[in-house]
């Protein structure tokens, strides 16, 4: 189950963050997302150390914790997408397609002429479509 998704702007400013758990652990999830930003920076600045293909948007597994796995995705426009899941058996292709849909939803949201670039995404349509995408992915 995906427990948290986040969109972070190119100056590491949060654009959208949403957790999908019943329990009251939003703060913990935000903390995990926050930590992953450093991992993304490291991946992007030292591409040789990590095994991922050069310059691909999908960054793969950023780091596993005891209960969660954190995946990242970095667009050409330096916008970061982060996803936290509790599933342990996850196939990369599924995560890739999840991020592709997530990215498409984001693009639709920022193409709204009333959206101010660099500001938080407040669109209800975006929140709905993200919720639908998250619900449609249970990796196990």
């Amino acid at each position: 189950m995906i427990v948290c998704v986040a969109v972070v702007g190119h100056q590491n400013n949060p654009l959208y963050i949403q957790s999908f758990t019943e329990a009251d652990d939003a703060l913990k999830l935000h903390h995990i997302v926050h930590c992953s930003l450093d991992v993304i920076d490291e991946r992007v600045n030292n591409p040789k150390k990590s095994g991922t293909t050069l310059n691909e948007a999908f960054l793969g597994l950023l780091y596993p914790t005891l209960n969660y796995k954190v995946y990242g995705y970095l667009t050409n426009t330096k916008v970061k997408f982060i996803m936290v899941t509790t599933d342990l058996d996850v196939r990369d292709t599924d995560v890739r397609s999840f991020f592709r849909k997530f990215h498409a939803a984001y693009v639709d949201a920022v193409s709204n002429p009333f959206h101010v670039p660099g500001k938080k995404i407040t669109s209800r349509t975006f929140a709905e479509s993200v919720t639908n995408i998250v619900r449609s992915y249970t990796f196990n």
Partner: protein
Amino acid sequence: MVREVAESCVDTMLMEMVAMYSGRFYANKPELAARRIEAIGYQVGHQLSERYTMERPRFSDHLEAIKFICKDFWSEVFKKQIDNLKTNHRGTFVLQDNKFRWLSRVSIDPSPEKETEDPLSTPGESKAAQAVSMYLYFPCGIIRGVLSNLGIPCAVSADISSLPTCSFVIRVKA
């Protein structure tokens, strides 16, 4: 599903936008009108770049981003590629389009007042060139919007040598 817009609508909108800004809102301040039109283009470019760079790997240097504009972006927006790309490898790029779509239906009145025999002062022609240049602030803004969203701050200007050939000069800020 891809939603499409008739080309004539885009042409009309561009014409009307220039007419509104340079003829009504800022009738006596062409620089201000130009800046406003450029700002609209910037926002459009900003949003388009987000969409058109979706399925591709990240660009590793400036030249790759410029090539993206010349090939993929230009064919998405204008259904053709840039005809000629020149660079001095120090941050200046010149993109030449031999038949720029938004100028393909623009013509300069071929019979300006011929009584002034002096070839140096051709007020009719320079006025016409200035009028045409108003139409180029919007595409300049689009290019600047795309590049700055890709993390390349720059200044873009346009030159018209002979219609409908048009070249865009991109100066990347260090």
